[in-house]
């Protein structure tokens, strides 16, 4: 099967970007290594290096290999009834470079475990505790400040500041109680 020119361009671009990750550093030219290491600044550096850059034969071969491999895989998918664009997206996902170090494998495993054990009910409960304690603290604090300062008669003549202090202190107490309940939930989860 022949791909459209646009798709060929996409495959070529993907292969160019990804194949270098698969190549070990020893097989890249100095400029390729530099480009590889600069990560996010790659675009800026690449512009400066474009005039100087001479790709190694190994790098070009790896790109070509990936292009052919990707197009073979895409053809296979298209024969199964998948559209050209979908086949490209799937091949991209499959062929995207992933680090295979022990650390990254462990990290991935931990992430997977974390998401598997993630229960949204816990987070909802924590939020409700915070909100509940905040309302409780603010109400008690406001009432204590209001009554302590002399009630309605004194409110407009300076007593409001005591009510305000009561609200702030009550709010802080509410957050404190929310944090304690959060800690209890986390300990219970373990």
């Amino acid at each position, binding site marked *: 099967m022949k791909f459209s020119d646009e798709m060929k361009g996409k495959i070529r671009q993907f292969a160019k970007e990804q194949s270098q990750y698969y*190549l070990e550093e020893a097989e890249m030219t100095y400029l390729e290594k530099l480009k590889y290491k600069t990560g996010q600044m790659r675009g800026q550096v690449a512009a400066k290096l474009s005039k100087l850059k001479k790709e190694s034969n190994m790098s070009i071969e790896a790109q*070509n290999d990936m*292009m*052919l491999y990707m197009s073979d895989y895409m053809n296979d998918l298209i024969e199964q009834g998948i559209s050209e664009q979908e086949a490209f997206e799937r091949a991209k996902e499959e062929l995207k470079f992933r680090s295979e170090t022990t650390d990254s494998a462990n990290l991935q495993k931990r992430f997977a475990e974390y998401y598997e054990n993630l229960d949204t009910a816990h987070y909802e409960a924590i939020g409700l505790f915070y909100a509940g304690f905040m309302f409780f603290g603010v109400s008690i604090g406001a009432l204590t400040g209001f009554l302590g300062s002399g009630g309605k008669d004194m409110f407009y003549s300076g007593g409001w500041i005591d009510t305000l202090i009561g609200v702030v202190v009550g709010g802080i107490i509410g957050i404190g109680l929310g944090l304690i309940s959060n800690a209890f939930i986390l300990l219970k989860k373990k």
Partner: protein
Amino acid sequence: MQNMREMLKGVLEGIVMEIISHGEIYGYEITKKLRSLGFEEVAEASVYALLLRLEKNKLVHITKKPSELGPPRKFYTLNERGHEELVAFWARWDFLRERLQILRLEEKENEI
């Protein structure tokens, strides 16, 4: 068979070398062969990376043939060093299989 990916990591190179030893073959054909053998969980990227490694370690002989997409397609055969490595792989495999079998039988005997 499912959940084979982790287990296969250590032996995939040997399996691919064995496939290559059967005759001239290109990259994606190896993936298809693996699938037909039941190794469906092998990621496409694993085979691509493995072939790069085999080439880097000079274990394969490469013949380039024209392809319809433009760049030449690489066909792999095992060279002498590759054959030696494959023999060594099977020796390691036999050792491992034998030890595991002993362990398995010991366990069964203890149960009886």
